[in-house]
């Protein structure tokens, strides 16, 4: 993975010293909160309902063991012994004290991490496919280009005060696991007619109060021209994006109101001026960065298959974990392992310091010291030898991290909601907990199969409810938390925004409602091989609506 050079190290050190000085001046009363707020936000420090919340960037979701151990240390020393992994593949701590935050940042710097641009109207952490560099179906590893984009976008002088925040996601596989069509810019590695690899560029996707599926702005941009092209997109957005209304300031609104054809013309005009200029990415630089992401020294191994049926007979829980939590690797004899952070009744995305230490040790011993964070709030050991799986599983079991539920109904995305977040209108975590308790039976989960539930505690949609196969949105009405249920959302290459089925339900009714939707699906599916989302597309919303609200 990428290692800081002297420039990077000096840059974050200087920035940390600046932030320490800003905190000290605030504590001494030399600057007020109105002056301090933008400074702390630029460094990822929010003030939430109960305390400060500190958000740390995990670039393109990639970590090594020393970094995860450092996060565990921070959780133990400065917080309450746990951290929360987010849909931007970052980590948040919910209980730091202001005076400690500069020390925390210094600890992060020691392991080449920071919190810059985890807030504010700038280009946020770039997310990728969690199996990047490992997946059998990708055409290149997108992370070298993600790292180049990270360097380009870090404190970019022109793009530090955009009309609104800006999120980029990348994938290099035909199956989109990074939800690129719901980002301000989505990038997909593709081959052109000559067989060369470049980038398909999507623009104007997003969730929030106005969900939009991104539009294709350019089918192919060469590596060497990608920075210039993205700079052109950002320039057009920076110039024309609405600054008069926060709710209409994202690029998705600009694209929607202006039309993709006009935006494309403007971008092409800008791009024509920049193409071939100083933003051209030299092949030597791409090669230099790519070298950091060279495949690890895989062994040629004899064991290249797993007999899951046999393992299931011997140990059903292990067999079920193998069935759900492995992803096909490009290297024979290896797999990527999803570590579920979705225990029954747990808080989705939370991991204790002890669990982080366990995962760090497993990464070090069994995954070439590599780890990933997924936008679905799980962790991944990207390169595990098939013959090591049992050992890895046993260690995860001991750490209470061995739930074999990846992609099942209990593997929800859930925002922190009104239990923590100052923007939320309703609680999310208790809803997720109750749903997982209701569907705790593993046989029942497997009977249902692939089903993504996503839960947000307000219209800002941090829980991605619009793209849940079943989405749940919390609202407040006359002092009561109500939950709107939508069905049919999809964050993959088959991008779709869910349809709201009807009026909001009180919290106690939500698990029952989910049960009714699931029962309807099972009753009407053509076979157990037809997933929920496919059945919904075939059937439409009517039977699901009727299941919840009757046919009146």
């Amino acid at each position, binding site marked *: 993975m990428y290692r800081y050079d002297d420039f990077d190290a000096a840059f974050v050190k200087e920035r940390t010293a600046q932030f320490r000085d800003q905190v000290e001046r605030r504590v001494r009363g030399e600057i007020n909160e109105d002056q301090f707020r933008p400074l702390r936000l630029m460094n990822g420090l929010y003030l939430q309902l109960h*305390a400060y919340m500190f958000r740390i960037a995990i670039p393109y979701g990639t970590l090594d063991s020393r970094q995860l151990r450092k996060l565990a240390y921070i959780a133990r020393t400065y917080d309450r012994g746990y951290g929360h992994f987010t849909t931007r593949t970052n980590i948040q701590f919910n209980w730091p004290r202001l005076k400690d935050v500069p020390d925390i940042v210094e600890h992060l710097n020691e392991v080449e991490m920071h919190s810059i641009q985890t807030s504010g109207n700038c280009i946020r952490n770039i997310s990728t496919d969690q199996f990047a560099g490992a997946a059998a179906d990708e055409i290149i590893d997108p992370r070298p280009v993600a790292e180049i984009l990270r360097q380009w976008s870090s404190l970019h002088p022109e793009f530090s005060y955009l009309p609104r925040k800006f999120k980029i996601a990348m994938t290099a596989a035909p199956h989109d696991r990074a939800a690129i069509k719901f980002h301000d810019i989505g990038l997909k590695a593709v081959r052109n007619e000559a067989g060369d690899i470049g980038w398909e560029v999507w623009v104007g996707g997003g969730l929030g109060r106005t969900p939009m599926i991104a539009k294709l702005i350019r089918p192919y941009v060469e590596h060497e021209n990608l920075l210039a092209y993205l700079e052109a997109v950002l320039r057009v957005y920076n110039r024309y994006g609405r600054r008069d209304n926060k709710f209409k300031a994202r690029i998705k609104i600009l694209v929607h109101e202006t039309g993709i054809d006009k935006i494309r013309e403007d971008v092409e005009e800008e791009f024509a001026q920049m193409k071939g200029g100083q933003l051209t990415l030299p092949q030597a630089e791409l090669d230099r960065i790519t070298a950091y992401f060279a495949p690890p020294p895989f062994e040629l191994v004899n064991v290249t298959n797993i007999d899951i049926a046999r393992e299931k007979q011997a140990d059903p829980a292990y067999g079920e974990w193998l069935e759900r939590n492995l992803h096909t690797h490009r290297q024979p004899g290896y797999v990527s392992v999803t570590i579920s952070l979705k225990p029954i009744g747990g808080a989705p995305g939370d991991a204790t310091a002890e669990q982080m230490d366990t995962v760090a040790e497993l990464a070090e011993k069994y995954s070439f010291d590599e780890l990933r964070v997924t936008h679905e709030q799980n962790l991944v050991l990207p390169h595990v030898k098939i013959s090591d799986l049992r050992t890895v599983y046993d260690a995860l079991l001991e750490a209470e991290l061995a739930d074999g539920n990846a992609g099942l109904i209990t593997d929800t995305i859930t925002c922190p909601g009104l239990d923590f977040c100052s923007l939320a209108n309703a609680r999310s*975590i208790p809803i997720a907990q109750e749903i997982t308790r209701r569907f705790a039976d593993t046989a029942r989960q497997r009977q249902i199969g692939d089903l993504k539930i996503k839960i947000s505690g307000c219209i800002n949609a941090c829980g991605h409810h619009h793209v849940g196969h079943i989405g749940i949105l919390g609202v407040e009405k006359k002092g009561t938390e109500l939950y709107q249920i939508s069905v049919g959302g999809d964050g993959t290459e088959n991008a779709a925004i869910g349809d709201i089925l009807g009026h909001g339900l009180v919290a106690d009714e939500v698990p029952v409602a989910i049960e009714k939707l699931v029962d309807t699906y099972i009753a009407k599916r053509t076979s157990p091989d037809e997933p929920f989302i496919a059945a919904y597309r075939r059937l439409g919303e009517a039977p699901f609506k009727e299941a919840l609200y009757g046919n009146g």
Partner: protein
Amino acid sequence: MDILTGNELISGATVYLSKTGEWVEDLQQARVFLKEEAEARDAAVAATKKTMRINSLEIETVQLRDGTIYPDRIRERIRADGPTAPRFDRQHLGQDDHVSI
């Protein structure tokens, strides 16, 4: 009826303006301003702002139920008690974090 609430600067802890002019953790010690005490309430807001130590300062409406202060908003009830899931104790003030007006 109103109370004043905010988050203390250093700890970030949820605090309430008490009857004696201190910013305290316990909602039940909060000073309740009646409708006719709007002037006193606004003076307390102004005095608090001068300390520069209380952030997210808000006027919150409450009811008195059998002598107990009960915030109208769910959000405020959660702020007073701490997160419900996972259940965590709320943030506490440190030794040097006490503020008064």
